[in-house]
């Protein structure tokens, strides 16, 4: 899966800047998307393109359990967030609704990848290739069931093994 990077080189990007509270009443996902990241980067909506990835630091998605956060990013066109670590509720929301891939990375990827770089995420090899800089980084593999939920296309399409 290839995409271009929008980089926020900071830790603790919280759910309230990803989608501020006043928009939790909005049920139209297209409208929700127009407010994604509004609390942090008012230009996000004008610069994001379908298929882009976000790159950020530690504890991405901390705070509220609002599923509106991954929904707003997903409907903006974001297919994956690459971060040094994730707040766990955000991580599960992203996976459960198949909104976007939460990819845990190491410092080599965080430091090596720049704004605008084109990267290729290869889940089967647990690798991220930086096509712009011709570098390769490891990503942390998904646990088995998380991988299966992702492969199924979300929690409600996942059928637990009968064994």
């Amino acid at each position, binding site marked *: 899966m290839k995409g271009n990077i929008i980089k926020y*080189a*900071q*830790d*603790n990007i*919280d759910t*309230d*800047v990803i989608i*501020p*509270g*006043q928009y*939790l*009443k*909005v*049920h139209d996902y297209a409208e929700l998307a127009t407010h994604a990241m509004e*609390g*942090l980067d008012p230009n996000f909506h004008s610069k994001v393109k379908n298929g882009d990835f976000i790159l950020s*630091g*530690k*504890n991405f998605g*901390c*705070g*509220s*359990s*609002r*599923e509106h956060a991954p929904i707003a990013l997903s409907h903006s066109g974001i297919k994956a967030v690459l971060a040094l*670590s994730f*707040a*766990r*509720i955000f991580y*599960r*929301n992203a996976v*459960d*609704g198949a909104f976007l891939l939460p990819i845990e990375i190491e410092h080599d990827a965080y430091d090596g990848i720049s704004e605008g770089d084109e990267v290729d995420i290869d889940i089967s090899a647990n690798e991220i290739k930086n096509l712009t800089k011709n570098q390769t980084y490891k990503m942390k593999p998904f*646990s*088995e*069931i*998380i991988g299966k*939920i992702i492969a199924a296309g*979300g*929690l*409600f399409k996942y059928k*637990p093994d009968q064994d």
Partner: protein
Amino acid sequence: MGKTLFEKIWESHVVVEKPNNPSLIYIDRHLIHEVTSPQAFDGLRMNNRKVRRPDLTIATMDHNVPTNDRSLPILDQTSAIQIQTLEKNCKDFGITLFDINSPNQGIVHVIGPQLGITLPGSTIVCGDSHTSTHGAFGALALGIGTSDVEHVLASQTIWLEKPKPFEIKIKGKRKNPHAVTAKDIVLSIIKNIGTGGGTGTVIEYRGEGIEDLSMEQRMTICNMSIEAGARAGLIAPDEKTFDYLRGRKYTPKNYESLVEEWREYLKTDNDATFEKQFTLHIDDIAPQVSWGTNPGMTCDVTESVPFPDEFAHGDPNQEKGAEKALNYMNLKPGTPIEDIKIDRVFIGSCTNARLEDLIEASKVVRGQKISPSVRAMVVPGSQMVKKQAEEMGLDKIFIDANFEWREAGCSMCLGMNPDILSPGERCASTSNRNFEGRQGTGGRTHLVSPVMAAAAAIKGHFVDVRKMDLN
């Protein structure tokens, strides 16, 4: 080898478990509210599913509800629709709802324990991150997103990666327990371990500093576990826990025999091991005030706003974060905390809007007037708290001091109902999050205890509440 309290609750609720994978966990109680449930019910209808256990599901409305006169219509159309939708969903699926006119309405994490819905040793979920509050009763209580809400409605289970047990020991005794509160203990913890310090763990709070606390104070501690990134926070139940829950609306009929079992079983064994540990000594801790834009950016009221490099200890992202926070908060490093003037005061939220919080704050306010430059409000956590406070005459103390005395709800904790800050306004708030825009776009939040908020309302700036007479 012995087991931790968390492991005992986990093991008694596992439906499916495979090594190195999420487990399927049975849920004893599901609390729902108007904001994170509508899409879940839509999903059930689309797939022609029922609610598996409507008898274990309880609903209320708290996030959106205005906190002014309840006889007035709700002006915000989208809020009104969310509230009507919850009413319809509860009716269609047979779920008990405490609606806006119910005497049991309130913030979901305040009413759960008050109604005896929250029980030791149980698993509780809610589509709200502050579900961790219920851990004060020795319940495993988790915040979940809307997909998981739908999963629990349909199956009464969730898939969950097993968190690691994290021991936080609170040692010592506070010298002035009226001025140095549970809020100051939990803010001190987060200041030390950071907002990601508990990621992937369930915290068990232990030690004499926890045993000394009342149930309401313990709820304040567990409430903010999520602000340290933890999946949940727990405190082993004791006689205070059992006494609190006796005789409430939903307390089980066989309560006394349950208490006997809980007394024996619901504690961490002496030879159990935790994967992570932290100890906080509270003998000398001061009232806390947050200066930045996450709860870890907190200092003593006696200190000054830190310089970003001294805060960061060499971590470039932390330094950048602190610079950005100070810019947003419009604060200069080196400014004494007590010199920071405030415009608004909010005493409320699932962290600090219980009866004890209001009693303690009223001791600061009694016979005084708030600063003329401050607008201050008290929003009780539930209609039951409001009624109890009014029976004690607390409403009069606050109203006489020029506080607004309002109806129960989440109010100004999260900026999605009419109670919000205007851009640039600075607020002393007893809530849990000081994120950018949390209390309204451009609003600036300082997290404090109820007594610190009350003192700031009187003086118009932060003040060390230990200097005031609180008896």
